[in-house]
């Protein structure tokens, strides 16, 4: 997956819709607005990271990286919640975070590709299904794999060529379709 910065922000906002709904319900049920505030802070933190760090750091993002980023974001969100003195216990905040993360991942993996047919192939952006023109992107680096071949003929080719070549056992051709016409066989 090679999300663009815009794609990251689109996804972040859309995937936090269900967690926001969960936060709203919890706030209404408990009378504490800190649940929905926590989601608001998570959204701002996420957008800042998407725009300022991830887009620069992770041009290609393998699937397993999603969980690693979630762990990092939990740490940052926890510190922010403490600094802003939200009235949620550590256990409440952590459980709520992981419940929200699971909802966000469900939205991203299941709902968004159905909602937008080209969501995944448009670098996680919500685009009209069209032939669009987004920013440039660099290819992956080339990995060379030809040390041996670079060194010229090796023992196998040398033993099979030249004056001292070992004669090859006559065998039928490999083709499963063609055969030598009978009149051409000696």
């Amino acid at each position, binding site marked *: 997956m090679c999300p663009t910065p815009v794609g990251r922000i689109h996804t972040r906002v859309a995937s936090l819709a269900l967690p926001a709904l969960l936060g709203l319900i919890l706030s209404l049920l408990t009378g504490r607005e800190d649940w929905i505030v926590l989601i608001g802070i998570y959204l701002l933190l996420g957008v800042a990271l998407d725009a300022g760090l991830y887009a620069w750091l992770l041009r290609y993002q393998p699937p397993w990286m999603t969980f690693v980023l979630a762990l990092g974001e939990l740490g940052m969100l926890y510190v922010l919640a403490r600094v802003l003195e939200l009235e949620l216990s550590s256990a409440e905040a952590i459980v709520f975070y992981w419940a929200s993360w699971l909802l966000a991942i469900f939205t991203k993996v299941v709902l968004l590709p159905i909602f937008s*047919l080209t969501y995944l192939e448009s670098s996680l952006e919500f685009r009209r299904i069209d032939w669009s023109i987004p920013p*440039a992107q660099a290819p992956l680096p080339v990995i060379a794999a*030809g040390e041996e071949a670079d060194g010229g003929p090796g023992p196998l080719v040398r033993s099979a060529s030249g004056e001292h070549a070992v004669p090859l056992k006559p065998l039928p051709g490999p083709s499963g379709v063609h055969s030598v016409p009978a009149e051409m066989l000696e």
Partner: protein
Amino acid sequence: MEVAVKPNGSGPQDVVIGVIGDGFGSLLVYTSAIYLGFKPEQIGIFGEHSNPVQTYQQFAWNLGQTVLRSESESHFLPADWPTFAQLDAYSRRSVSPLLRSAGRKFNPGVPEILTEAAIVTKRLGFERRVLGGAKVGWIVREPGPPPHFSLFDEDAQLLGRCKHAMIAIGHGPLSYPGVCGAARADPRMTDRIVQAYEPKEYREGGRYLVMGSGIAAVNEWANILDAGAQCIALRRNLHPEEQDLNVPRCLFDGSGIDAFQGLSFDQRVDFLAEVLRGTSPERRVWGDKIKKGRDDGRFEEMIGTITAIEPGPGGLLVRLGGADGSDIGEIEATGITCSTGFVKSAFSLPLLRRLAQTYDVPVERERIRLKTNCGVPPLDREDSRLCMMGLNANTVVPNGDTIAGLKYIARRFVADCARAENLDLRSFPSRLNLQIALARSTVKALRKIERTKQLA
């Protein structure tokens, strides 16, 4: 234009979307069209076969291919969820495909992906929409109103008409580079110079040369070593890329594809020549076989080419030349396998050649100079699209001949048709319902087949 196909298939076969060709590409156009809201009777597949995987299946069998090079997202369900790894994991009650997919080490097995294609084909009624039962030989632009295309077979018999057309005719003929082509034409050697995609058999004690450096070549190296024969791997370029996909991974995403489209035509062709010059995936099983073959003195790689081929006592006498033009010498070989893919020239496909001749379609460096929306100039227009997909369109979509690339083109072409026809798009619940129904049928079918061993 009214859709006038009768329920029994007789009468004029007029459709809104006509797909010329009956392979993977046509199935993906069909599924995308159904998913977005077109009705089956509005779509016509103009080809010979009702099984869209027939050609691929034969090639895969000949290659001895067991897994696809594609990754988990590349499969035949219309939308991108569930991925193939998720289907596989659910059907086999195993997390292994998910873990592999997370590490980009999951490749769908050939039997599994063909099973899914068969399910989608049947459930969406693809077979019933194959019209005419003949290969399209001619495309004629009709000015209308409304503007449309008439499709004729090779004998100039009218097969049907369509308002929008997608050319999905697949690859050109197999390629036999340099002296291999001439030698293959000699009946004394025809049976010894084969293509990786042809049926073939390697024998113990034989010595085989394999030309090429892509996935098909590596596959042949393994097959030859498995047979107990010697393998000399010949390639023309010094450094093939080592990656699992046909093009750099980010070129599979919209951003990469559109950046590619931002290049000039010449830059795109040059870029393709560079990135597609040979990519060989690093697969554990193959690596082990090749290492063992090398240790046994039965495998060797060399940079160079074949300069002459003659019949010899052991089968063939092959003269080898180095990359610098030097003469390496003559060796005996049992056979030569050309893993050099397909002829990319547009002129190798009669339909395209006629199109270029009749309508002055621009051709440059033997490739049709498509518009950035894969449209064929000057015939393509917004209200009656004529598009091309597959290898012939990789000057626009670099991975155009992969499942991911075919999907990319199919979706956008169908969306263009939907806009031109003011189609009422299928609702979200209906899309979800369709996708889940297809996924459920696929899962059921996957449970009945044996899991293919992963190579990575």
